[in-house]
């Protein structure tokens, strides 16, 4: 897609390979909308991209304060983009607090665009600035673009129907207009969206359109420094296909819907609100009946997992979703699902902990809990998708494993995956082989609830309503085959082994672990899991470009681990595991393969930077 702003052809656009832009402002400033619209237009411009949102923990922290800053970051470029970018190239700071909080992430020489109308003494004080940073040497290392953004917006937008306050609210559209211009974009997708969104509210609609135009035009027509900041980012060489921007929350939910459909099941989605899992409940509630979803907001997390178990017991697909503290509450009931061998899909959108911790920040610290966080021996399946795109297929896989092996499956996502977005190639549903639940259990002889499929070791899913299959299940240890209560010592040992072997056996039915990038053996493999994929991958690429020999292995199957993983790891002298926790996967792999592993923990509530991983790898490579 080429630029077609003819009258400005004389303005020179710098062609750049990629850019990291962060929009930041008060949580009331509409920053997320700004970011999302910019993202949409970026995608349509053919760039690959990744985004990340950063919210304050308070619903609405005091306006203008550091704690109230909301930010949206996008990394886009003409090549495959797998992280949100280590350092920002361009920072839109809509108030002093936004500047203060985000400045340290700006690269040297980066561009700052500020609304100078907001740098009043009062606003500066709220942000915690003693001296106006525009006046001292704070910004010496950066390029600064001061704009009277509020005033320009108000001037453009104010009519008799629009109050000054309302007019000022359109600042985000003014800034978006400017950003679109800077990156050589069409306005049409945004104007379409505004028309749809504010349909019926004529004045607001007009105000937003006007502000967008004004911002766009400002750069277009004024000469004020604008030509210093005009960029063109060529299209990325992307595989052909149908694409759309998605967050992990969306793909995960759609994956569940698709998985249930492929299994010929309705999904009963039972949850209790908790950040960042609530959005799944909202999304699935919105889809509702037409998609064979029965959404249920329970009274707490215990009730939500129990209702999901009840739904699976009754023969539909019980799914529950939560985050760390809620997962802890669910653990007793998950034990029941393991003991009774009922299918259950559990989504854990991990966040910063322990306890309430940092609810709006990301972390990967619930791996221990997922694998080991229940009383007694309760093996189950744990999966961890690496990206928003991967959430879709992971959800389908979770459904299939749950019903094939009659087991709970825990899907570990995190705050980053939930909110981050990327361009997703929409898969062809028709190409996925359905796995409908076989309900012809009528023919099984004998109809024993704890008889087993010799291949999977799964028991049959006999459900209430079936004639001739009447039986009782429960949490007391049950007799092999019949399922009747049994206190027999040998039977308990046997059943414990059966439950163990059933899950262990999955190791050989999942794909072999492959090396993501780099050679199959060598000095150093960086092993990651879940959402750290992007930064690890880019780090390994960079190092490879620098001619280091290094590999990237990324785990998706956390439990059971792929059958060949031990052998694969033994082909590397060093294993480095960067994780957003104190070293949980490292513990798991040490315990599974009795081999030394170098753990690189980062527990800041923020994703890894590429450079951090590069540095950590270099320490080993250059030893």
């Amino acid at each position: 897609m080429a630029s077609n702003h003819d009258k400005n052809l004389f303005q020179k656009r710098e062609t750049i390979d990629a850019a990291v832009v962060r929009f930041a402002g008060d949580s009331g400033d509409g920053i997320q909308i700004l970011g999302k619209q910019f993202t949409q237009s970026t995608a349509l411009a053919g760039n690959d991209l990744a985004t990340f949102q950063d919210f304050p923990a308070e619903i609405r922290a005091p306006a203008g304060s550091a704690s109230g800053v909301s930010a949206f970051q996008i990394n886009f470029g003409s090549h495959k983009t797998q992280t949100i970018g280590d350092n920002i190239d361009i920072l839109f700071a809509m108030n002093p607090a936004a500047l203060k909080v985000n400045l340290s992430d700006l690269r040297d020489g980066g561009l700052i665009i500020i609304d100078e109308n907001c740098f009043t003494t009062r606003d500066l004080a709220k942000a915690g600035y003693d001296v106006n940073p525009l006046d001292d040497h704070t910004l010496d290392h950066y390029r600064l673009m001061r704009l009277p953004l509020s005033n320009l917006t108000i001037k453009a937008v104010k009519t008799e129907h629009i109050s000054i306050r309302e007019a000022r609210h359109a600042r985000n559209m003014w800034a978006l207009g400017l950003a679109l211009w800077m990156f050589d974009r069409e306005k049409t997708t945004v104007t379409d969206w505004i028309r749809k969104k504010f349909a019926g509210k004529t004045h607001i609609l007009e105000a937003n359109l006007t502000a967008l135009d004004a911002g766009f035009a400002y750069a277009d027509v004024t000469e004020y420094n604008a030509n210093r900041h005009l960029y063109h980012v060529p299209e990325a060489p992307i595989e052909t296909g149908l694409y759309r921007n998605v967050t992990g929350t969306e793909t995960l939910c759609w994956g569940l819907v698709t998985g249930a459909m492929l299994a010929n099941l309705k999904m009963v989605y039972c949850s209790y609100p908790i950040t960042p899992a609530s959005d799944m409940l909202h999304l699935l509630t919105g889809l509702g009946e037409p998609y064979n979803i029965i959404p249920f907001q329970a009274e707490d997390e215990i009730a939500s997992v129990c209702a999901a178990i009840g739904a699976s017991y009754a023969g539909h697909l019980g799914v529950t979703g939560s985050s760390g503290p809620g997962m802890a509450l669910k653990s007793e009931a998950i034990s029941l699902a393991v003991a009774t061998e009922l299918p259950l899909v559990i989504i854990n959108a991990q966040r910063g902990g322990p306890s309430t911790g940092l609810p709006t920040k990301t972390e990967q610290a619930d791996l221990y809990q997922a694998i080991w966080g229940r009383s007694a021996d309760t093996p189950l399946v744990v999966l961890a998708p690496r990206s928003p795109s991967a959430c879709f297929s992971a959800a389908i896989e979770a459904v299939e494993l749950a019903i094939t092996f009659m087991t709970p499956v825990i899907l570990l996502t995190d705050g980053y995956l939930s909110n981050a977005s990327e361009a997703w190639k929409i898969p062809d549903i028709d190409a996925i082989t359905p796995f409908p639940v076989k309900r012809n259990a009528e023919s099984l002889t004998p109809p024993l609830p704890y008889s087993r499929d010799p291949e999977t070791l799964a028991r049959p899913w006999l459900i209430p309503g079936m004639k001739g299959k009447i039986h009782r299940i429960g949490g007391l240890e049950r007799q092999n085959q019949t399922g009747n209560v049994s206190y027999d010592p040998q039977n308990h040992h046997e059943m414990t082994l059966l439950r163990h072997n059933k899950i262990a056996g999955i190791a050989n039915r999942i794909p072999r672990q492959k090396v993501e990038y780099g050679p199959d053996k060598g000095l150093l493999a960086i092993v990651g899991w879940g959402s750290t994929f992007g930064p690890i991958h880019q780090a390994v690429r960079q190092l490879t470009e620098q001619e280091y020999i290094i590999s990237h292995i990324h785990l998706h199957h956390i439990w059971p681990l792929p059958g060949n993983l031990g052998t694969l790891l033994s082909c590397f002298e060093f294993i480095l595991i960067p994780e957003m926790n104190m070293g949980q996967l490292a513990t798991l792999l040490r315990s599974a393969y009795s081999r030394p592993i170098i753990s690189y923990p980062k527990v800041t509530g923020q994703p890894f930077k590429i450079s951090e991983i590069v540095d950590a790898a270099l320490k080993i490579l250059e030893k």
Partner: protein
Amino acid sequence: MTININKLEPKDYASNQEVRWCPGCGDYAILKAVKKTLSDLELAPEKIVFISGIGCASRFPYYLQTYGFHTIHGRAAAIATGVTLANPALDIWIISGDGDSLSIGSNHLLHLLRRNLNLVYLLFNNETYGLTKGQLSPTARLGTRSPTSLHGSENEPVHSARYALGAGASFVARSVDVAQKHLLGILRRAHDHKGTALVEILQNCPIFNDGIFHELTNKKNSPDHILELHHGNPMIWGVNHDKGLVLDPVNLSVEAVTIGCDGISETDLLCHDEKNENMAWMLAGLNRRQGMPTPVGVFYAVNKPMLPQLKNEDPGKEDLHQTENLNQKIKKLLDGGHAWTVS
């Protein structure tokens, strides 16, 4: 919800599992009444599900030739909620003890009652923790001695019926384990009710709490202590059928009177009105008061909004793909009008 089959006898609803309660346990009588009710109602065994928590009472499902799920302590209501959401065509019964329901599980009971799902909830109240050997139950009356209340309990118990009314229940009833005829009537009423029907069954635990309901069960003078509620009828009790309840409008309370004394005749008495929540409330508090009888029967029964029963078919029978092109629908969802083509 019921279908006609070759009528099954009560014994046909018994599973092949040995019943394992202590000799003399009130649970036996309740089991008997439930089997009779299932038979009387001619319910198809495979359409019935009994869901219980943990406790002596909660072993109940093992003894019935129906589907059964013995779950975890306090969570039967939550699990039954999921079962109901997935397949409302089932005939769902919850079995739970006083500890299970009103100690660890009360939050779920509250929300079940409020949501008013269509099922029957039998609360076996023996005022003790049977299975764990006799600790203080939340329903144990003031002064109860137990291994955890050596000098007698010091707090008012939870009164199930009051709790249920406070939680917004649409049907609240009480019966007694050994009062078979009464119990059968109540079970039938509960099953007929549309919404959640809570039945408190006073149950003797001969091991840890023997005889606490003796006043209500001994043949001789129980009529002096029990008030049988009948919708529309004046509230009368007593061995001589001469005691009654009247309203004291000044003190806004119900009081006991004797027919024939102080010029009181039967027409002065309060008539029971199942649909009156204020009356239900007053009656639910009666047993705490000196000289007052313990009411049994239906305290309250009204229609309230129910958590909508989705038009689910039996999951075992359904083919979701038959009715529509699901793939097509999902394709549309994934596209969402926001997609673009890279070519």
